[in-house]
């Protein structure tokens, strides 16, 4: 699996929100995208998925396993989602369909890509629920999203993202909407599952502390541009750009307060 983002630009409502971003993710690599809100990181992910708003103007290139994604019509882009590229969005409450059971939602990628039948789909949904640590998997698959806690919903989303064994997993602030104690648990679950499956990870966040636990290498985004790219270790201990330093300061302040 290889993901090559080359000189990507995204224009929304006349404003250039992403400006010449280049990044590559190789097989089994864990890469991060970090920056303040509004720096264009989420939009970059949406561009890879082909889920930008209709009026967005995209320039540059995104190559996934040699296939060019920019300008691809939706019906050709759709088959790549779920099976080739999985995604975990930020807010699990709004990402889940309120009127469908979570079992059916977890199994949906299977039914889309592998044509799995109902019984089999339910069985694999139960397995997936168990894998992400949801309590009482047999019964929970028949529940509705509003009956679960925030942390449980995010586990559902993670299970859904991974069930079709994508080669690349995208994550857009997957722990931000959760409370602090759940955050750590979910992050660990994340890392474990990605490792086990040998998938690659592109992880977006604004929190350097979270980044440290999730990836090995990261690019720092500010105002839509990449201002620094290095291993996480280097970013934390030897930050070169002002923005990076600002992020490190913010982390230190938070951890101090946590103590």
């Amino acid at each position: 699996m290889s993901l090559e983002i080359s000189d990507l630009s995204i224009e929304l409502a006349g404003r250039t929100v992403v400006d010449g971003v280049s990044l590559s993710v190789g097989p089994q690599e864990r890469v991060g995208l970090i920056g303040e809100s509004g720096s264009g990181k989420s939009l970059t992910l949406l561009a890879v998925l082909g889920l930008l708003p209709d009026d967005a103007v995209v320039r540059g290139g995104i190559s996934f396993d040699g296939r060019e994604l920019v300008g691809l019509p939706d019906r050709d882009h759709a088959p790549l989602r779920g099976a080739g590229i999985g995604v975990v969005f930020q807010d699990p409450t709004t990402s889940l369909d309120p009127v469908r059971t979570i079992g059916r939602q977890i199994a949906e990628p299977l039914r889309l890509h592998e044509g799995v039948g109902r019984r089999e789909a339910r069985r694999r949904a139960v397995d997936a629920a168990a894998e992400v640590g949801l309590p009482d998997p047999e019964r929970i698959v028949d529940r509705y999203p509003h009956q679960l806690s925030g942390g449980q919903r995010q586990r559902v989303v993670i299970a859904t993202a991974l069930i079709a064994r994508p080669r690349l997993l995208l994550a857009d602030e997957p722990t931000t909407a959760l409370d602090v104690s759940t955050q750590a648990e979910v992050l660990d679950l994340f890392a474990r599952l990605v490792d086990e499956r040998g998938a690659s990870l592109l992880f977006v966040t604004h929190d350097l502390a979270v980044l440290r636990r999730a990836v090995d290498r990261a690019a720092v985004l500010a105002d839509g541009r990449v201002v620094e790219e290095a291993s996480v270790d280097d970013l934390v201990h030897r930050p070169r750009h002002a923005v990076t330093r600002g992020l490190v300061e913010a982390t230190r302040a938070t951890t101090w307060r946590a103590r």
Partner: protein
Amino acid sequence: MIRFTAGRLVLFAVGLLVASALIFATLRLLPGDVAQVIAGTTGSPAQVAALRAELGLDRPFLAQYLDWVGGLLRLDLGRSLVTGTPVADEIADKLAVTLPLAGLSLAVGLVVGVPLGVLAALRRRRPLGTAASIGGQILAAVPAVWAGMLLIALFAVTLGWLPTQGFPLDGWSDPAAALRALVLPAVTIGLVEGAVLLRFTRSAALGALDADYVRAAAAKGMTRDRALVRHGLPNVMLSVVSVLGIQAAGLVVGAVLVEQLFSLPGVGRMLVADVGRRDLTKVQGELMTLTAIVLAVGFVVDVVHRAVDPRARERGE
């Protein structure tokens, strides 16, 4: 769920009560002496006095009202001031036309409005969607009677496929003929109602398009349009159901106008005639019946909506 239904039932009853009070009060606001007005200039003082006693107008206002409500509870709506026939019987007779008309109109409205509304949202930046949206705007501005007349001009006068007006004298004994008589009227009301449903469905669908869960569904491997249809639509449908209750009022309005236009022997046309004849007892009964229908539809819709929405089925089901 039981508690919810009971609560809605109470609201329904309160609605009927308030409606009955308002209707009664409004009709008794008639300036001057009711009996005098009905008797006209030809009635002698003795006749007027007799009429007044018969109508119970010499009794206190509240007593008259309670009498009427008591009658309502027994489904006794009094007797016509003009013909003396029982009002309830006449209304029941006419409902055989009005209720099917309302039902058919609602069906037409749903079939026209909802799919076009979804289309307007799905293809919103393309000609098809814009056309659907504009079509809805125009339809919503068309007066129902004009729409009916245009349909008559086209389908009845020019093409001769359907009757210009009227309803079979023997009612539903020939269902095919009866239905033929109801087609143009139902389409008339249905188009106007459909326009309202179109705008609402389009708005709901647009909201769903932006919804996170629709985007998340597309991220699982389907196109965005399909995600909207599979995941957005059921949620959209749910909100459409919630709006149907309000549509009932529009159906009644449509029925009154359209029955007049097409000379259909329904409750609406009878109401229009009775208002002109100042047959207050009948008018009271007719207004009450129509309002009760609207409130009843609202009640049923509320309960159905609640039953179908998983979020509402939480406690102990």
